[in-house]
Structure formats: C-alpha cells, structure tokens
C-alpha cells in the first residue's frame, strides 16, 4: 500500500474564520486559500500537497456557513478530513462539494506529519508504521452517492438529466 498522504493534525474547534478569513472573502479562491489556517499554522497553505489529509479533534469547521472553508482546503489539495466530530454546516458543505469527511473516534491516535493511506468507502485509515488501520465511521450511502458524483451540483445534473429522459 502506498502511504502517500501526509497527515496535517489540528486541535479542537478549528473554526471557519481561520479556514477562510473574513477579510479575504471577496477575493478569488487562490488568494483566500493562501491564508487558510494561517492564524493557527502559518506554513500550512504553502506546504500542504495534493493528496494530503487533514486530521483534527472535535467540532472541525465550527462557525459560519461559508463554503470557502471547504473550497480553500480542496484548492490546496486536501483529499479528505478525518476528525473526532464536525460542525454540522461544515459537514454538509464538504459533502456538497465532494470532499470526504470522516468521523473518527480514534482521531487522537493520528500524529502530525505521519504518512497514511485512506480507503474512503470502508473508512479504514492505514498509518505508516501501524499494524492495524484506524477505523473511521463510514459515510452513509445517501451521502456517499453525492460524494461519488463529485458533489451536489453534478449529482443534481444527473438527476435532472434522468427526469427529462424518463
């Protein structure tokens, strides 16, 4: 198994103001993303790579309904977020934008900087050097269908196409 994803580990209550700071909210996503998480981890935006995973404690994405909090992470290449729990609106936004978000009771076991590989369907997260994978709660099928389509917009496009066809 290739462990190509680096884990970026954050604490509890990471809020949408640090993910997508208000003063950049009218700026293009590239500008906004460059400031993603800078108030808690200044080097994050410049160092995170395509395919990396963000891990966190409880209530990730607390605060506003701004989708840019999800978009910024996606833009920077983050492919999944694993957290003890998510703030409700952030969770919905992530699903709607096709970014897998997995609840994981054992998120404390994930160390910053470790390399890992994640099977989104089963929720198994294999960490380099660990014998057993960390188990995340699998995403419900209803929501997996939206993620599998790449997000709500494509999901609806398919549905509407189906409605006209039938």
């Amino acid at each position, binding site marked *: 198994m290739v462990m190509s994803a680096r884990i970026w580990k954050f604490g509890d209550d990471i809020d949408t103001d640090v993910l997508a700071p208000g003063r950049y909210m009218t700026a293009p996503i590239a500008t906004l993303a460059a400031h993603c998480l800078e*108030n808690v981890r200044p080097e994050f935006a410049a160092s995170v790579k395509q395919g990396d995973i963000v891990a966190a404690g409880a209530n990730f994405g607390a605060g506003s309904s701004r989708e840019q909090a999800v978009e910024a992470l996606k833009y920077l290449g983050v492919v999944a977020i694993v957290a003890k729990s998510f703030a409700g609106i952030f969770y919905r936004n992530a699903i709607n934008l096709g970014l897998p978000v997995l609840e994981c009771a054992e998120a404390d076991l994930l160390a910053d900087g470790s390399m890992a590989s994640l099977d989104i369907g089963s929720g198994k997260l294999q960490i380099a050097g660990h014998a057993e994978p960390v188990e995340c709660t699998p995403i419900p099928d209803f929501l997996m269908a939206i993620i599998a389509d790449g997000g709500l917009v494509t999901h609806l496009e398919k549905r509407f196409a189906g409605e006209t066809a039938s």
Partner: protein
Amino acid sequence: MTAKPLTLAQKLIAKACGREVVNPSEIVIARVDLAMVHDSGGPRRVKPILDRLGRKVWDRARVVVITDHLVPAADDQSRAIQTLTRDWVASEGIDAFHDQMGICHVVLPEQGHLKPGMFVVGGDSHSPTGGAFGAYMFGIGATEMAGVLATGEIWLKVPETILIEWIGRLSEMVSAKDMMLRLCGELGLDGGKYQAVEYAGSAISALSMQERMTLANMTAELGGQVGLVAPDNITADYLHERGIDAGDTGQWRTDADAPVMARHTFDAGSLEPQVAAPHSPANAGPVGNYESIPVDVAYIGACTGAKLEDLRMAASVLRKGRLAPNVKLMVAPASRHDQKTAAEEGIMSVFENAGAEILPNACGICAGYGSSRLGENIRCISTTARNFRGRMGAASSSVYLASPYTVAASAIAGRIADPREFGGSM
C-alpha cells in the same frame, strides 16, 4: 390508540415531509417553505450553479433576498456583488428583496416572513434565529442553497432534541445573551451536537421575541442545528403587529412524554452577567472574572446584539455615565426599522450624546468587513456572537463577548465592568 409523543422538532420536520411521524436518525427529504439568502453567500454564489443546472428558483414567492454583509459597498468587488444581486433578483422576479435594510436574521421576521410551523433554510450560520418563532430554520452553505433553490427540497437527518430549561426569572441587567454565553461556557461549542436544541421554562416564556431571537441565534455557537422556542401569546402578538395570523400555536410544542436526548436545567435567578474571553464563545464566565481588563473599543452591533431591545438595554446604562476617555464606542443598529424606532424613543440620541460612532444597519465588522475593522492589538468588548481569532479585524486583536448592558457599562468604565454597578434600569 394514542398518538406517538413527539418533540417540537419532530413535529415541524414531519409536517415538512408530509408525514405523521419522523424518527431520530432517519434521513428524510423535506419540502422547504422559505429560503433566505444574503449578498455574501447568495446570488453571487448560487447563480452560477443554477445557470449550470439550467434552472430558475423553484418558487419565487418562497425566496427572500437581503443585503447586509457587504453593505455599504466599500470596494469594486463588493459593488459588483451588489449589482449582481439586484440583477438576479429582478431576473428571477423575486419580490421579497430587502436591500440594505438591516441584518438578514432581524429583517426576516421584522418584515413578516416567519411564522410557527414553517420549515426554512437560510444561507447563513445564524439562521437558527428563526427558531424563536417556532419555525424549523437552519443554516446551509451556498451549493446546498442552490440545490434548494432548484428543487425546493433538502435532506436532513432527523435530530434528537436537547431540552434546555431555564427556571426562575432573570435578574435586572441580565439578558438572553448572558444565558447563551453561560450555555456556551457550560456545554461547549459542540454542546448542541448538531441536534435540535429547545429552550423552555418560565424564564424563557417571560422573554420578548427579540430576546428569544438572541437565544435561538446563538444556538449556532452551541453547535445545534436549530434552536427552538415553542410559540405562545408573545409570538402571536409579535406576528399580529405585522398583520400575520400565527394560527394554532398550541400544536407546536414538545409532547410531555416525548423522549429527548438530554435535559439540562439552569436557574435564571442566580445567573450573573457573563463575558466570553478571546478567542471562543465557550471561554465564558461571570463578569467578575474579567473586571480589571481595559478595553479600547465597545461594539454594539450584529443580529445577536443590536436589535431594538439590545439598543434599549445599552442606552439604559449609557444614560448613567459618560464614555471613558480612551474608549471608542461604535453602534450599528441591526435594522433600519429598529434604528427608526430607537430614534423615536430617544435612544439614538443617547448614543450620539455619548460620542458613539453610528454605523450602517449591516453586519459591518462582525463580518470582518469595512473600514472600522479592529486594528493591531485592539481589545474590544462586543455584543456580537463570535470572537474567533481575527474575525473582526487584525489577528492580534482580541474580542470579549457580552450583553448590551455589559458592553455599555464597560464603555463607561474603560474596562470590563459589571452593569449592575450602574444600578437598576430606568
């Protein structure tokens, strides 16, 4: 056969699903009675998606558009967003457009768009405010909003109910804001677990509609999906003033034997004014814990803390003193309507005489927007709902959250102060 006992949240969702009963944890599809969007998360973000889907809004009579975040437009980008918003409203034929009239969560009920029993989504995280009216209202992001606008429906996982009971009666100079800061301190930012929070008890029944709105509003900080108050005569009276018949409010309450996830009881009578220290609403404690901390700015603003009643509370304290020399007081009344009434009551002149800067009826620096943003190392005491790092300006600024009474008292004292020092209300 007796009907299965249900919570208020379940009843509201069941109605929106066209069912008799819904059960916690099942994923259901609900029909939306009303969708509210604002300028920041609204047309500029939903229009491209609707265009791509080749759809117009599903029912133009069920959409409300309110501009409040990027007003008055401070730069070209914001101006372009406002123009786009107006053009979109016109092209969709939406009548309910409230342009620069105030903050969406305050304008929505003020303009008579909410009533008990409705199922409503808002493109903003403080949308639980609508729960004060016995409506199931929650916040969603822009893509999901585009989905609602295209289809008129939304999925949700039927929540459990967390019942929060406040018994007794609030003391003088203690308000709904203090109740919510106390709850954030006690239960944490995920205490609501994205379930339905319902507020009940004698101290809740005694609250006015705008105070109930403050409660429901800050359910966002508690991490609940909705924050509900069962409608009653106070609700019906508020609606009646706006020419709306509240209908049979008695049906919208949690049945006595309905199972709930948790029940917390708090004593309103012993609640003291609360302050939440930087950088989280959960860092809350009695005002006495913070009393020597000097402040540079006192901010009375936002949907949480600048409604008519909030302005009345602040003015009742400001009447009793002068602004401390080094404090800047800013007041951004939550709506044009509330500002007008406040002016008629002589409240706006209390602020003006105190030397306050009166800001537009908009989100302003609560949204980190505009030229009044907090500068480096500024310490602010604020009636807003959130004090996350950097939200209201520079990352080095710090924000203490408190009630309008406490913010006004602190503006006079030049440090965080207990409003009860200034005696009873006038």
